[in-house]
Structure formats: C-alpha cells, structure tokens
C-alpha cells in the first residue's frame, strides 16, 4: 500500500497529508481533515450532498480521489463564511427562503449555486434550475431553493 503526499488549498488554508491513492476526497475531508460540511449521502455521485468546489467548479467529492485534488484549490461550505453569524449572501438567502428542512443536502446545493453565481456569463434562472437537478432533496420539494434562485437572478437585474 503506497501513500501519496497530497497538498491543496482548502478554504484559503494550505493543508497537506499522506493518503492512500484510494482515499476519496470526501473521506479525506471528513475523516482526515475534520471538515464535515460535505456530507456522505449516497457515495455514488448521484445525490449531490458531497459537492465541493475544485478550482471553482462544483464536483462530487465522493467520486474524486484525494490525490486528484493535489495542488488545486478546494472549497467547502465551511469556507463560504466566517461562521453562522456572518453568512455568505447565498447562505443568507437559503435561510431566509426556507430552502432547507433537514439540511443534509444543503451544503451541496450551496456549493453549486455559489459556483454558478460566480461564473461569467452569469447563468439565468432556468440554467440555475437545470444545474440544481444534480442535487437531490427529499424534504422541501425544491420550492425554497427556487425562491433563492429567483432572488439571486432578480438581484442582478
């Protein structure tokens, strides 16, 4: 069993560690780094709860090896704000619009929306809705998340 040195920028901080090649980025983040915002929902890349940003792009951390993140920038929900008291505007919208119930899927939704919100040209509401179809939520019926999108795209007008 060979160990690989991996280092990357996580939420603005440089981190490193020795990992087995087979360690997924999700397991590395949750178990080795203690960064438990990305959740293990299905672990087959379907549900979206483990979504993080790698080089600014939303990806499934359960279908990526930790070593594949070597030298990259990785962002998780923890990096969006300084904590529950100073929320990122999209986090704030999620809260205001009741876009969550059990909250397990929420970090994944947030990461995809944040990436979309930053991208140029900025996607319209329909494109954002389509992007969200890669995230499963069993509680809300997605209605609150769509209100968030409406407000995000309104704010830009």
């Amino acid at each position, binding site marked *: 069993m060979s160990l690989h040195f991996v280092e990357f920028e996580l939420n603005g901080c440089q981190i490193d560690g020795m990992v087995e090649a087979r360690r997924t980025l999700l397991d590395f983040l949750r178990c080795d780094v203690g960064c438990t915002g990305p959740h293990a929902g299905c672990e087959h890349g379907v549900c979206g709860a483990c979504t993080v940003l790698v080089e600014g792009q939303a990806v499934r951390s359960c279908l990526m090896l930790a070593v594949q993140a070597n030298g990259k920038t990785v962002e998780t929900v923890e990096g969006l704000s300084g904590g*529950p008291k100073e929320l990122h505007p999209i986090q704030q919208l999620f809260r205001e619009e*009741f876009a969550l119930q*059990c909250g397990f899927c929420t970090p994944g939704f947030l990461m995809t929306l944040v990436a979309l919100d930053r991208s140029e040209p900025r996607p319209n509401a329909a494109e954002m809705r389509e992007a969200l179809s890669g995230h499963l939520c069993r509680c809300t*019926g997605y209605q609150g998340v769509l209100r968030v999108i409406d407000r995000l795209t309104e704010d830009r007008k």
Partner: protein
Amino acid sequence: MADASLSVVGAPLRHDSAHLHVAGQARYIDDEPETPDLLHLAFGTSTHARARIVAMDLDAVRAAPGVVAVYTAADVPGANDVSPVAGDDRLLADGEVVWLGQPLFLVAATSRRAARQAARLGRIDYDAQEPILTVEQARAAQSLIEPTQRMARGDAVAALAAAPHRLSGQLAMGGQDHFYLEGQIALARPLEDGQVHVLSSTQHPSEVQHLVAHMLGRSSADVTVEVRRMGGAFGGKESQAALYAAAAALVVHHTGRPAKFRADRDDDMVQTGKRHDFVVDYEVGFDAEGRIAGLCLRLASRCGATVDLSPAINDRAMFHADNAYFLGDVEIVSERLKTNMVSATAFRGFGGPQGMLAIERVMDAVAGHLGRDPLAVRVANLYGPGRDVTPYGMVVADNIAPDLIARLRSDARYDERQAAVARFNAESAILKKGLALTPVKFGISFTTTHLNQAGALLHVYADGSIQINHGGTEMGQGLYTKVAQVVAQAFGVGLDQVRITATRTDKVPNTSATAASSGADLNGMAALDAAETIRARLADFCARTFGCEIDAVVFAGGEVQAGGERMPWATLCRRAHMARISLSATGFYATPDLHYDRAAHQGQPFYYFAYGAALAEVVIDTLTGEHRVLAADILHDCGRSLNPAIDKGQIEGGFLQGQGWLTSEELVWDAAGRLLTHAPSTYKIPTANDRPDHLHVTLWDGANHRPTIHRSKAVGEPPFMLANAVFSALGAAIAATCPEAGWPMLDAPATPERILAALARQRDGVRA
C-alpha cells in the same frame, strides 16, 4: 392570566438550525469526532429470501484485515429482537432467514471499508425453500401477518345489486423507499458500570432505548438514547433505526469500545422497510349523478416477512378508504400478506395514501363511466349533513371539505381551465392534457390510543434563558422551532431566549415516536403544560411580592407587569430564584376523547381531521408516455398555523414526495426476492426539474375546532396525499385520447411504459 401577544406563535420564523445548516455546522451523527478506538460495523446478509441456515463459516471474516470481532445471534446476551411490537424482528438471524438481505452476522472492524469487505466473506450453507413473494403466492398459501380485517356498514352487496350502475376494477400501486438523505446511522459509547449511550438517527428514541436494553439484558435505566437531528426520516426511522442502534450497542457491550454503524446507501435500501405496495379491487354501485350507493373494496398489501407496524398501517388504509366521501353501505376488507421481503414499514401517510388513492380511482372510474366531470362526482359524494358518519362510526364533526374544495375550485379557476384543457385536447393530436382536483381528509392521532401522549422538561435559568426538551425528534420538519415558539409565547419572550436541546431518553422518558403527524400537537401541548406550571409559579410569586391579583400579572414583550411593577423577564427570573421558587417543571399531555374497538373496527380513533385539496394540471406525450406536471394549486388546512412558513414547506415537500411515489419511484424485486432498485441511480426520486412548473400553495384560514396547541393542525403527512391529483390528472389526460372507453387502467407509479400501455388499452377500448 392575560395571554401574551401573538408575535411568536403564528409567525413565519426560521428553522432553529437554519444558520447552522447553511454554514455546514449542524452536526449529524456521522459528523461526531471519531476517537482512535472507534469500531465500524457492517452486516453479513442472507442471499436467500427463505431458508434454514445449516452452517455459517465465518473464519475468513474473522481473518480479514482490520476485523476486531464478529458476532452472531449466539452473542446476543438478552433478547434477539429489534421489532416495535410483535417480537419477530431478529437483530441477527437465528437458524432461519425470512428475507433476502437479512442480517446474519455483525462485523466490527477498524474501518468502515474493512468491515464492509469482510462482511462479504462469510460462507453460509443454506437449506433454501421456495419464497413467498407475490400477492398471488401469499394468498394461495394464506400467508398473513394477521387475520384479514373487515370494516363494514349496512349491506354493501345488497346496495350494489340494487344500484342503477355498477363498475368493478383493479388498481395496483407500488411501494416507496424513504430515501432520507442521511442514511441509517447509530453511534454507541460505553459508560461506566455497563451503561450505554447511543446516538441514533431515530424517530423513536424510547423504543430504541427499550430494545437496546432488552437486547443487552439490562434495564432501560442503563441505556440513554439521544438524537439532536436526523437528515430526513419520513417514517423510515420509526422502527427501522433500532437494528443499527442495537448492533452498535452489542459491539460496545462486548468490546467496551465505541462503535459506529453507518449503513451504506445500497445496503440501507436493501435492509430497511419501505412503504407497502397495495393491490385494490373494487366493486361500486352508483346512481346517475355518480353518488355511491354501495361499495366493496378489497385492499391487499405485501407486508414483508415480519409484523413491524403493518397492522396499524393497514388499519389506516381502511380508515382512509373513504377519504372525504360518505360511503353509505360499504365493506372494506383488508388482507395483510406475509411475504419473504424486507418488512414494509411506516412511511408518511402510513397506509392513508393507499386507501385514499383507491377511493379516488373509484371516483374517477364512476365519472368516466357516466361521462361526468370527476369533480362533480367527487362533490356529490362528500360528507355532509345527514351523511356524516365514517365507515368506522366516527362523526365527521369538522367537515370543511365542501367549502375548501369550492374555494380552490374558484381561486384556481377549475372550470375555466377544464374547458381550456378540453379545447387543447381537441386540437392537439400528440400532446394531451389532464386536469384534476382531489381532496384530502386525514385523521390525526395515533390509532393505537395509548401512543397519544407526550412529555416535556422545561428549565428556566436564573439569567432568564430557557431550555426546553421534549420527546419529539427533529427530522427537518421544524418541530423544535414550533415547540420553542410555544414556550417563548407562554413567557412573552423572544425566540432567542429559548434553547431547545437534543431529544434524550434521560430527560423525557417513555415517549412515543415522532410520527403520525403528531409531533407538534403532542409535544407542543406537553411543553405548554410545563411552561404554564412555571408561569403560574412566577405569577404567584409576583402577586405575593407586588401585591396584585395573579390574573393581573402579564408576561409580554420580554417583560413582566405585575400591579404597578414592570421589569425585564431576566430580572424576574433572578428574583424568583433568590426567593427559592422552582424554575424547572415537567409537562405532560394525553390527547382526550379517543376510543377504538379494533375487533369491531368502530369508534373514534382520531381527535380531528386535517383537510386539503389540490388541483393538478399535467400534459402527456402520447408518443413516448412521458409526462410533465404543468401546475399544481394547493389549498391546505393547518388550522391556525403555528408557523406558516414551516407549514408551507411541509406542504410543498409532501406534495412532491407524493408525486414521486405516483410517477417515477419504482421498486422492483426479482423472482428470488432480491431488491433490484437499491441505488439512487435506479430508484428515481423527483429532481428540481420534476416539480410542477407552477406550484401555488395557500393555507386555509381557520382554527381547529378542537383545542389543540393554539388551535393549529398537524401537517406532516396530510399534504403527501395532495399528489393524488397528479395521478388523477394523468388518468384524465389518457382518457382524453378516447373518452368513450371510460377511465383508463393506469397503475402507479405512472412510468412512461405504464402510460404507454394505458394509452394502448384506452385505444382498444378496455374499460377501467
């Protein structure tokens, strides 16, 4: 005692953990820090649905890397039982297996991967028998979990014979996986003197506590179960969580090390129960208006291999086979079939959706037969004066269904849109639209009467902060927020003064599951009881101290007014503490006026009914069988809502979950009894793109006629059945291709191939 202002209860306040959820800081069990001695668990499971175990060779399992211990039924010190009622669910199989995927042995290893890999290495010698899987096989073998039940009034057969019109038909509806995003998980830790602490993602901490204690051969006082939040549950963590909690506790018992069992998603889907699938046969007699004169309904469900909660679930299907309609002479027969599959279990609606979908199909079939508008048939059959007693003998005393339907009909422009749909269908050859408006009347209470009780524990600290604990569990539905609102309101303080803490069996004992939509009804009342106890002590203290009448003490706006005195709430708390007033109290509530004679299926099993109605508009592509829900307009009754924003969330989420059950979520077992749809790639819950293009939810404005907590109504389950409108609308769209053929035979879920098959039958003129 003057009531405080209504600013907290009834306000659309945010979920108490929302700020944590969005920051990734709301802690679930899997987020707990792991100590180096933590053991990870996995089950070795059966590959036969029905067999005798001849021998188990687990040497390879024990020898696998990372494995610390392997346990079988022989290692269970107490009762090998994780069942809610009947004592027939084994933690680990003992001699025989009754479903494919049943846990046989338990592996404890140093990593989750090691445990899972080792669990595959067991060599099991089976003496396999032919499993009973289908409805037909179970009927032929008379394989039942309990005797067939009958609920009846009058003489349905005679009424049928005398009716001017008669119809018969069949409807099959599939089961449903809960697909909570957080899978089953438990983390058990050893305490001193053999005690165990279990973090369990469960809706029923008390039951987990009792089962774990019984399994270990210890007393309930030795086991503490705690749950702060679940990542969704929907009924799937009512009885099903006990298996994993018991496994973790067993390992703690033997090793003295903490143990975590996080089920893999596929394993979770195979190992835990689902909604019951049903086959319904009906025979109905009716007049020219479509009013039902007589009805024989036969409900058959596959309950799986053990009893679990199936008796109560199938009872609820019978209770809801009337939905909002007066059925006159009626016979409802309910077969509870025992099959060699994972035991079917609680799922939002608890049998209600199946019973209700059955009667909605009857309404549609009658309308199709007569060529009448289905809504006219529905309205003609509603409960009303002189027609207000259910088949189980309960008077429908709060019947708002006629008014609620009339309002939705007008607000959502049913008639205008129905005409527009007809015009569209006349001009469109390939795309066909359908529109339907269906009601919901859902009985609120556990139908097992003794479960309708709850407790709370309330502390007011000397600094004025308040800590509330109750027996209900938080699974995202906002129960903690609602109960905190009730408490804040009672003391006239802001919600920020109230800290609501994790549900623990050492704080509030002997609780019922957070289920049957009862969470806020029961725990809100228990919390209010506790709050009123403390408030009365404080009012008495004020009256004595400041020389005023007790009734003149007012708690409002974060202040207390007593006679001429006025002081901040915190000041009062401090003074009361100095005066040696107890600021801690328990609260209790038991729902009144419930009684039920199960042998006769007569009585008053519900405290009240929650109502709603939905109008759904769909379009189908007759070439491909695809469909889209264009719009849903919902009017739903939450009584006087404790929190309209949270209630709307329950309605929106329940509706889409119901839509998934009826359209895209399909469970398939093969001929050996193996579940084939056990992954999110093969089991398809709705995505954001499947929700209606237009979804409009309005709350019915009216108080509960019963003195429930602030006159609110339960909202967890009832909205699920609003999605019946989608299924009826799909039927209407198919019917539009050939209306003279009557209502189409469409089973649920309405996948593209089922819609195509229904279209083909419609074309060939097969009547429903």
